[in-house]
């Protein structure tokens, strides 16, 4: 272990975990209301970023306006997906629903490539690419204080992600629609019998998932550029959701940060194979959690287990 690198990579890892947590939240939104795990979230992310790119670069609109437009378009796409793809699946077995979102992910990925083309794109810089922040720590290594170097991009993405998480958490906790969504997640029939229109609630949660995906996609694209492989980033968010227990918002945030942290920590190692394991760390952590604590770190203990 290169111990002197530990604080740097741990902090970078946690900061990188912020956007992961936000993306994972999009999955939880849908799962909480309709018990569907959306494998197509990565493609929603990609489409959100592509629309933002299209409005701001191709149509040369103001950046904030184009983000707003992209969010609106993605909310509509979210509604449409719920209406035309997932609603016919109501009452179908788990496999059909999983496959529906998998098929959707394939179709959307193909559609994105067909309409927008596969080239690597320059995404507008949202956060200034100025000098990285430097923090001098009291820790000492070989006579010098360890200095943490943090890119502005990373810090501000983290901040935006945290704000997004707080807004969504507050929305769930304090608004009537949020309350209705929580009620629906408890029991569909019971919620319906109290007069909630659960179809509309499913639609709203898919629309919101599209919005969250757009914000996440823009955050990722602005720091790492935009191409079609952006949709793969979500594969790191799937385990974050499970770590949190699928239906817990604080758990998902903790899961996302934990995944980021684990990816940062392995980079400290001196052994090359461990250092290169950052890409699979989410899934290694997932396997361990599944074997030891299958309900996740914060989930309710009602998951199906044997």
């Amino acid at each position, binding site marked *: 272990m290169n111990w002197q690198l530990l604080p740097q990579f741990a902090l970078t890892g946690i900061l990188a975990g912020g956007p992961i947590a936000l993306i994972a939240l999009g999955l939880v939104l849908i799962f909480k209301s309709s018990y569907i795990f959306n494998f197509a979230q990565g493609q929603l992310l990609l489409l959100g970023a592509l629309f933002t790119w299209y409005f701001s670069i191709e149509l040369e609109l103001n950046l904030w306006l184009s983000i707003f437009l992209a969010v609106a378009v993605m909310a509509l796409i979210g509604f449409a997906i719920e209406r035309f793809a997932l609603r016919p699946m109501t009452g179908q077995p788990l496999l059909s629903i999983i496959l529906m979102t998998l098929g*959707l992910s394939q*179709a959307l990925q193909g559609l994105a490539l*067909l309409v927008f083309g596969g080239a690597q794109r320059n995404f507008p810089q949202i956060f200034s690419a100025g000098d990285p922040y430097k923090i001098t720590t009291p820790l000492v290594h070989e006579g010098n204080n360890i200095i943490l170097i943090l890119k502005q991009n990373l810090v501000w993405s983290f901040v935006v992600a945290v704000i997004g998480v707080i807004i969504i958490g507050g929305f769930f906790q304090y608004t009537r629609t949020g309350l209705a969504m929580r009620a629906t997640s408890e029991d569909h029939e019971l919620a319906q019998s109290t007069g909630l229109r659960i179809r509309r609630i499913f639609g709203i949660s898919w629309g919101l998932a599209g919005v969250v995906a757009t914000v996440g996609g823009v955050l990722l694209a602005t720091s790492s550029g935009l191409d079609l492989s952006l949709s793969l980033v979500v594969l790191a968010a799937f385990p974050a959701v499970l770590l949190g227990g699928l239906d817990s918002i604080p758990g998902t945030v903790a899961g996302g940060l934990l995944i980021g942290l684990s990816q940062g920590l392995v980079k400290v190692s001196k052994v090359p194979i461990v250092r290169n394991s950052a890409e699979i760390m989410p899934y290694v952590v*997932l396997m361990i959690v599944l074997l030891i604590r299958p309900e996740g770190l914060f989930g309710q203990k009602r998951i199906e287990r044997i």
Partner: protein
Amino acid sequence: MAIQRPAGEFDFSYAYDMATIRRRWQWVMLLLFLAGLYTLPLYASRSVVSLVNRIGISIIAVQGLNLLTGYTGQISIGQAAFMTAGGYISALLVNNLGWPFPAALPVAALGAGLVGLIFGLPSLRVKGFYLTMATLAAQFIIPWFTRQAFPEVLNGAQGLNVNVPVIFGIEFNEPGKYIYLTLTTLIITTVIAHNISRSRLGRAFVAIRDNDLAAELLGVNLFKYKLQAFFLAAVYAGVAGSLMAHHLRHINSETFNLVDSVLLLGMLVVGGLGTNLGAIVGAIVVEFIIEGATLSAPFFVELFPATAAGMIQALRPLFFGVTLMLFLIFEPRGLAHRWQLFKAAWRLRPFSH
């Protein structure tokens, strides 16, 4: 549905009752069909033979997935990862140790099966969606392993060039010859899969799928049978992976990827879950649809000239995804079910009820 016999046909002996192929004309049809397949290289073009080859290998992988997902009800999106495992083991045995291909194939299958067991272990504690995520973990960890571990043997991300299989001095170095290996293996795997599905093992699988608590109450050891299902699925994947690796003569960590796993599941659903016919029909139909995507690319290039370069990469997932979604909405039980309905309707004609 299966019990329903055509009018005038009776079972006079247990052997006849159990027989899969009951009539002499069915034997004749089957043998004619197989003869047609085996002589395919004589009259079909190279691309057709190559397509049939690929379909055959896909069928084997889907048959394995059918045992796990269709019969046992454990959803797996890791089948392609076990194909990777099988392909690598087979390639190493043939390349480095000089094993003959017919010996390397079963060993690669068993090796892939053992890898499958490891990733089936979480089935002890979780089921449903959580187990699916564990198989997704396989889809990441196994290819990563081939990229990072033992670079002097596995050659990292570059992958391995695989030797041409040689049996009795015959080199299977082109699709026209390789198809004999694929077809022969396919016949064996089909017979085994069919017999598993109607033996004690298959009935235990179905019992677990339909109601695991009831199955356990009846004395079906859940963990044992689930692991057996994982093992069998991975063995089939290993066979398919080994065949594909020697067919392509190259394998790396991306030869069989997550999209392939989804594709295999999609084939199973299009064909029909939990039916042996479905595994075969589904693989054929989906492969044809993907081939159709490739063939229709020039037409779409005119519509979207900006994407000309990546057109095939765009159309394949699009066609497949849309097909899968349409099937899930309109024919969730797959083509095999439709075929059963059709047969039943034909037998009862002209009285449909």
